């Protein structure tokens, strides 16, 4: 019972988290927590086969499928806060609490006899016991399950398949389309600018700077812009100040080592010089 009282609060909290977190990816991870905890409860409940299947099928296959689809659908798919039906959220919450109340009252009336336990049924091993039932009483249902799985795989392929209804655009088409856009709306013809390269940052989240010092919005991916993880130009300037302070602070004790480095090979000294030039500008 210790495992139960440890895992049950975690599961309920994670399940409530699925309800309330805004980002779908976080909901998927919280659901994975619930499923792994459930697998542990199955192990406690003398169901080792279901313990393995729960981890392999649910947390392995199904959660990966969810995360994969989230990746395809993109980061803009968070829930909107606007209610389309008035009072929808309040009504849904009230209904959920009512439903939980009805279930709790109903289950409160039930008095169960002490559990029989599965030691007898699992005497030949849990998997052997399940196989004996599955391939005798339930063999027809088992066959139907096979048909269901084949149908589901085919259905997913049919649904995910996209028929090409227009000819594939060649490079010449793309070029003429781009020129037409330039002629109509004055859009930029050349490729988009690359992200900025600085002394300490050359990642894709650092925008290039325009001649007036403002960041060029087209130089970073729009996905990063939607996530709000683009670094701002003043931040990078602060970073450079911090580096300058760091270097001036340890300039005296490290003069010997830097001289040795310069004597050893000229490259470190050369690579420091452009940095200083960058600082003074």
């Amino acid at each position, binding site marked *: 019972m210790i495992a139960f009282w440890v895992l049950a609060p975690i599961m309920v909290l994670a399940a409530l988290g*699925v309800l309330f977190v805004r980002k779908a990816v976080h909901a998927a991870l919280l659901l994975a927590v619930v499923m792994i905890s459930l697998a542990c409860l199955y192990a406690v409940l003398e169901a080792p086969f279901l313990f393995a299947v729960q981890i392999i099928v649910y947390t392995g296959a199904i959660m990966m499928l969810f995360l994969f689809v989230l990746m395809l*659908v993109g980061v803009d798919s968070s829930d909107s806060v606007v209610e389309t039906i008035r009072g929808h959220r309040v009504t849904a919450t009230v*209904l959920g609490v009512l*439903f939980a109340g009805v279930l709790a009252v109903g289950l409160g009336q039930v008095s*169960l006899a002490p559990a029989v336990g599965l030691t007898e049924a699992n005497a030949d091993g849990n998997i052997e016991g399940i196989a004996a039932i599955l391939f005798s009483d339930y063999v027809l249902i088992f066959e139907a399950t096979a048909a269901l799985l084949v149908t*589901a795989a085919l259905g997913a392929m049919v649904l995910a398949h996209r028929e090409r209804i227009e000819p594939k655009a060649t490079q010449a088409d793309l070029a003429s389309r781009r020129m037409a856009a330039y002629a109509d709306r004055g859009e930029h013809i050349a490729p988009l600018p690359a992200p900025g390269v600085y002394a300490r940052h050359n990642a894709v989240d650092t925008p290039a700077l325009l001649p007036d010092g403002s960041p060029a919005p087209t130089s970073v991916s729009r996905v990063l812009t939607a996530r709000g993880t683009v670094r701002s130009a003043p931040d990078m300037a602060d970073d450079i100040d911090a580096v300058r302070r760091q270097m001036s602070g340890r300039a005296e004790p490290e003069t010997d080592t830097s001289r040795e480095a310069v004597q050893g090979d000229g490259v470190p000294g050369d690579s420091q010089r452009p940095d200083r030039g960058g600082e003074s500008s």
Partner: protein
Amino acid sequence: MTPYIVLSAILFAIGAAGVLIRRNAIVVFMCVELMLNASNLALVSFARQNGNLEGQVAAFFVMVVAAAEVVVGLAIIMTIFRTRRSASVDDASLLKY
């Protein structure tokens, strides 16, 4: 055994409330999975209560059906997203008009 059944009831209620509250189709789908998992927990604990393995076999079938359902459901969500550029259940309302 009663605590296990109560836990499964709580999880089922949370899943049902999630289906009603959330409007992102993928999260709605996750809540359906939560409900299926809750019913599985009830099946497995009743199997232990009664001392035979049929409950575990039933839970196994629920898992298989859930896997098939997820595959088809996510494919439908992908198709809707491709045509409407949105995964919100509010935007798939063409049949309403």
